[in-house]
């Protein structure tokens, strides 16, 4: 247990912050408003290993520890959460399953491309009738010769509009004739793999979240990740990891909103003095700072467990639950502190406010996190 950042974590943070402030800060508002995915900035991020954060060096990644990876996502999201989302989904739920479940051939084939960011990844579980209830997936994958034929529609796919590689959860029939979900590696260009329009979202607007359609899409057998029927196992394990990323993203949003509020409260004069000198505003700021700090410690604790090889699912859920709720609260207070200006698109806190909400929804809603946490606590043996 170590509470002070080590030299490496300091440098990781400084580097990511410097990049975010020089490259993302100037465009964050505009790409949000016009729903632009900034390909030129993404191209620069590729060279700096943003897309291979935890991939081993021999696959071209940066081989970072989990706290470092969380810090990167936090710093990106502090400035531009939609790009933080792109990076965390790519690393946390698209690349991670390759590291955990892919065979050597799949790793050789895909990890270099993913780690270099040449290919952007997506993770696609959600369907119209399968949200919180991930077991209700209806997309099918029917075996045909050396391939599977996929049919169905996925929705709310982060990076959907730009991904080159998507992990698709679809039902396969097992030898015992039971239907079980399996995970398929689908590449851009596979026949019958189509993309829908970009969603017009409340927040995270610079991320090309879209639907994906599969119309008799032929996927070679060797693109099955893990074994047939491994879908649930892969999904749950991946989401445990993904939640660390979403927590980091929420934390970054909270941090950004808090900093903006502190600055504004010092500058804004009403009643002939800065509003920061009003006790009510001070209380807001104290709460924002305290809860953001608590969120950060909780998140790093989950990271530490993960790197130690210990079970971390429950802690990841706690961190996700808490960080996202702090993000929502802090961004709402940030708008409050900014008054009418905070409700205007000219100020960043308005964007933070919109972006924060979804961290309580995706990769398991807060309700689902509580379910996971409670299940884990209640399942512990009574001594």
């Amino acid at each position, binding site marked *: 247990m170590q509470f002070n950042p080590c030299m490496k974590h300091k440098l990781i943070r400084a580097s990511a912050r410097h990049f975010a402030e020089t490259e993302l800060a100037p465009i964050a508002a505009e790409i949000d408003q016009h729903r632009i995915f900034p390909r030129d900035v993404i191209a620069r991020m590729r060279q700096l290993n943003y897309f291979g954060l935890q991939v081993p060096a021999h696959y071209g990644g940066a081989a970072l520890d989990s706290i470092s990876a969380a810090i990167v996502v936090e710093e990106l999201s502090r400035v531009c959460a939609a790009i933080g989302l792109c990076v965390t989904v790519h690393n946390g739920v698209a690349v991670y399953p390759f590291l955990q479940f892919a065979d050597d051939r799949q790793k050789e084939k895909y990890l270099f491309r993913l780690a270099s960011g040449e290919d952007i990844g997506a993770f696609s579980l959600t369907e119209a009738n399968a949200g919180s209830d991930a077991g209700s997936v209806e997309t099918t994958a029917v075996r045909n010769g050396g391939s599977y034929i996929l049919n169905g529609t996925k929705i709310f796919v982060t990076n959907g509009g730009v991904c080159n590689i998507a992990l698709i959860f679809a039902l396969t029939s097992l030898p015992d004739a039971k239907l079980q979900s399996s995970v398929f590696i689908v590449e851009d260009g596979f026949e019958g793999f189509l993309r829908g329009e970009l969603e017009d979202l409340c927040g995270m607007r610079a991320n090309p979240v879209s639907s994906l359609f599969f119309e008799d899409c032929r996927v070679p057998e060797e693109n099955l990740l893990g074994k047939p029927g491994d879908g649930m196992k892969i999904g749950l394990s991946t989401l445990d990891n993904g939640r660390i990323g979403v927590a980091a993203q929420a934390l970054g949003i909270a941090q950004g909103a808090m900093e903006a509020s502190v600055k504004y409260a010092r500058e*804004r004069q009403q009643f002939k003095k800065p509003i920061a000198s009003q006790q009510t505003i001070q209380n807001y700021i104290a709460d924002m700072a305290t809860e953001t700090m608590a969120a950060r410690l909780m998140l790093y604790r989950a990271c530490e467990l993960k790197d130690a090889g210990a079970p971390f699912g429950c802690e990841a859920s706690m961190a996700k639950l808490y960080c996202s709720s702090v993000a929502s609260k802090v961004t709402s207070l940030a708008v409050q502190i900014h008054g009418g200006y905070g409700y205007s698109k*000219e*100020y960043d806190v308005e964007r933070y406010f919109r972006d924060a909400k979804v961290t309580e929804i995706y990769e398991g809603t807060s309700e689902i996190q509580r379910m996971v946490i409670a299940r884990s606590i209640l399942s512990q043996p009574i001594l």
Partner: protein
Amino acid sequence: MTKQKSIWVFGDYRNYFQNRVTLQLLSKAVDLAGVIGAEVCAVVVGHNIEEWIMEYTAHGADRILSIDHPSLTSYSTEHYLALMQQLVTQRDPDIILIGATDFGREFAPRLAKRLQTGLSADCVGLDITPEGLLIQTAPSFGGNMLAEIVTEMHRPQMATVRPGIFKEIPHDYERTAIVERLPLPSGLPVPRARVIEYERAVQREHTIENATVIVCGGRGMGNKNNFKRLSELAGLLGGDVGATRPVVYAGWAGHNALVGQAGKHIKPKILFSFGISGAIQHTAGLGEANFIVAVNKNPQATMMKMADVAVTADAGDFLNNLIRELKKRIRD
């Protein structure tokens, strides 16, 4: 007999601007010399330097040490180092002041090192104790803080001094000084850094974010034509034009001129603010402006209260007059 105390000023004259600093230093040296009973000595080296000998005499030097030789025609740090090292070693001055021009800031550190003494950089204040200790005030941390620096045990005490800080003494061509015309010492080193080319530079291209002078206009400029004249002032000062939001919305200026919360954050050394009320969304972009001149017909406007200099006037009128007056006064 005690040794005559002496404060030296290095004659830096390559362009008008550098020469001005030398004059400002002479004036400050005269002040300091008064406190400790020292003479003020200007060192002038180069070729065809009679003009500078006269000028430095007229501006307060008691003594001039000059070396005039064709081999000194162009500025050479290494030549000057060798000459100064010799002169200082022979005559042992108490203090050497050098303008913090680009030349001075490259030359002075090497000289101090050779003389094995201390040096403070880019001073904005100089004081002296009756005992002769030079208190050198230099900016640090981007000018946010000031440091007081002294060289206690070693002599001479050396400082480079920022241009524009001290006021020169009006010239007096009746003044006289002891002018020592010294021969070029033998054995001057061949410079190891050879100047291959040099030419006067044209203005460096800049953007509003890094411009040192910005002329901002607001609704108080009245109309687009008045607003356009701001660029004339900016041009004279080598600066850029900024605008408030209403002005951008009215189409008097492009969006990339917008200064403030929703626009550019600027950090000019000098900011002119014409007809701007000073709304927080605008002033949020001015965090680091060093010296603010506001022009407004309303003396109570926030911008006027924030300013270093607040001119109560019609913005367009004042602008026209300022341009006219500046054109009369600017020379190169």
